[in-house]
């Protein structure tokens, strides 16, 4: 009993690193331009399908496809920004939400149209085998995915602190007026943040496909899940994001093994509401 529990917790914590990666994309978008993107989870779903498609058509492994899907999702992000989001910046936030909810419905319906409703999975993965630690087995694909997620998260945080573009993004999220005074073009910065935030879902989607299946409705779960991670972490703390991701992943796994397999989302939502009630500013956040 405890053995399976710990086993599940380990798996959950590793998946949680990918959740943190998804939430990082969301926090770039929300933190920088204060846009509430309800479609973020569905971008993860779309990335997973793209990975599935590429994998099936060309035989390229899911762990490598992010190299292709990353620029693709970046372009999609830019397109969405300039076609839709840019026009809503000066409007009330409800209009923004109406638009991104429309986008969410669009992506979901499109996925259903193209790939039908049944779950899809890739039959193989480059990363084979598993690692034995004591009496616990860890799938190598999960471990590699978690490691890649952590690396990407720290890579992005380096990008944000070391490069001019990254610093422009951070400046815009701190104080837009001051940033524009220093020659930061806010529309370009916003577009960059939105593109980058969307592109991160490509990596997450590829990693998830190495050990999971995908269906058109799973965007909802990723969406609320990443908001949960973000609510817990608060804005602006990279280690906080990672810890929160791991907590959410572990909590999800625990709910599944202790209570009911269907309760996985229930646990996340309860956790989300609890965090909002008890720590409205997040556990690690500065805002």
């Amino acid at each position: 009993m405890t053995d399976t529990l710990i086993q599940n917790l380990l798996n959950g914590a590793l998946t949680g690193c990918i959740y943190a990666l998804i939430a990082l994309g969301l926090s770039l978008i929300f933190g920088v331009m204060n846009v509430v993107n309800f479609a973020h989870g569905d971008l993860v779903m779309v990335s997973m399908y793209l990975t599935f498609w590429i994998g099936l058509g060309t035989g390229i492994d899911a762990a490598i496809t992010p190299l292709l899907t990353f620029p693709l999702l970046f372009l999609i992000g830019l397109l969405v920004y300039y076609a839709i989001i840019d026009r809503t910046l000066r409007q009330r936030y409800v209009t923004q939400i109406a638009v991104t909810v429309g986008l969410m419905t669009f992506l979901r319906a499109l996925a259903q149209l193209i790939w039908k409703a049944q779950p899809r999975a890739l039959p193989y993965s480059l990363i084979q085998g598993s690692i034995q630690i004591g009496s616990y087995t860890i799938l190598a694909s999960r471990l590699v995915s978690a490691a890649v997620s952590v690396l990407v998260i720290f890579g992005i945080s380096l990008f944000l602190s070391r490069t001019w573009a990254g610093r422009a993004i951070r400046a815009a999220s701190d104080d837009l007026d001051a940033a524009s005074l220093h020659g930061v073009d806010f529309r370009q910065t916003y577009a960059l943040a939105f593109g980058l935030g969307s592109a991160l879902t490509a990596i997450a989607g590829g990693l998830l496909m190495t050990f999971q299946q995908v269906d058109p409705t799973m965007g909802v779960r990723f969406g609320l899940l990443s908001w949960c991670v973000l609510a817990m972490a608060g804005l602006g703390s990279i280690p906080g994001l990672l810890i929160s991701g791991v907590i959410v992943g572990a909590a999800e796994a625990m709910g599944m093994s202790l209570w009911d397999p269907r309760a996985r989302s229930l646990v996340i939502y309860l956790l989300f509401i609890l965090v909002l009630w008890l720590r409205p500013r997040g556990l690690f956040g500065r805002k």
Partner: protein
Amino acid sequence: MRSGNSLPRSLLIALLVLAALLPLVARSNQYALVLFTTVLLYGVLATAWNIIGGLAGQLDLAAGAYLGLGAFTVGTLLIRWNISPWLGMILGGLIAVGFALLIGYPLFRFGIREVWYALSSSALVEVLRVAFLIWNQVGGPMERYLPYHEWSLYHLRFATYMPFYYIMLGMLVLALVVNHRVRHSRLGYYLMALGENEDAAEVLGVNTQACKLQALALYAFLVGTAGGVYACMYGFIHPNFFSGPLSTEVAILGIVGGMGITYGPVMAAILLVSTREFLRANLGGQLESFYLVVYSVVLILIALFRPQGIATFVRGAYDRLLSRMVKE
């Protein structure tokens, strides 16, 4: 946007008569009746939403939660104890209110606003759906059917959809009257003020927390009772009644209808829900969910290019038509 939002009385009466006559045109066409009733249902939900969303500016995404609670109250009471849905509707509404207050109190107490309110209310719908799926005594994964009756007013069960159309029409009128009353009362002004700026409303003596709870309670009650009718109309209850897509759609109707405009959400419901059903009927055949792709594009376009809402647009068209008729 918000002033001058009442329609001329003559037009209202004409519309109501038209709505009352509509089923006579549809006759025994059950498909048309379901469609009309569905439009009315969305009209009721979006009009109720207008109180918390449009006036008070709280982006509530939990309509499905209150709808489901109302439906399960009515269904369970009828199936288990043969209690009339008329009583069940009231109880369902009250349970929805109780639940709304239970959730709303801590949310408003801790000053959870805007995005986070929207997200936590939408999480609520999913929490309830899963909870009812797991809770086998009342919910569970199987549909629970209401007893069949050819024509029973007590059981609110009919072999035709016609009576449901009229019940829903009555509910819509009720929802509109409540909306109108609130809009022109102290509560309405307070809600509009706090929807714009909570701090400014507070220093002018508005107890923002209490006002938001009142708005939430009115909204939950209307949606809960509508949920009871919903269960009787479809003849079964299922945890999927706690529907996230329905909840977001209700909010969208309220937004694109015109925030805070009493008749906006109904107009949006008539236009958008019938568009959606038209697309479903005409495009759904060969390509499943293609209609949703088109529909969502329509939604995005309206939200982008008519941000003040359909109501202002319709109102403008009506005024132009009227002035042209007067000229002639």
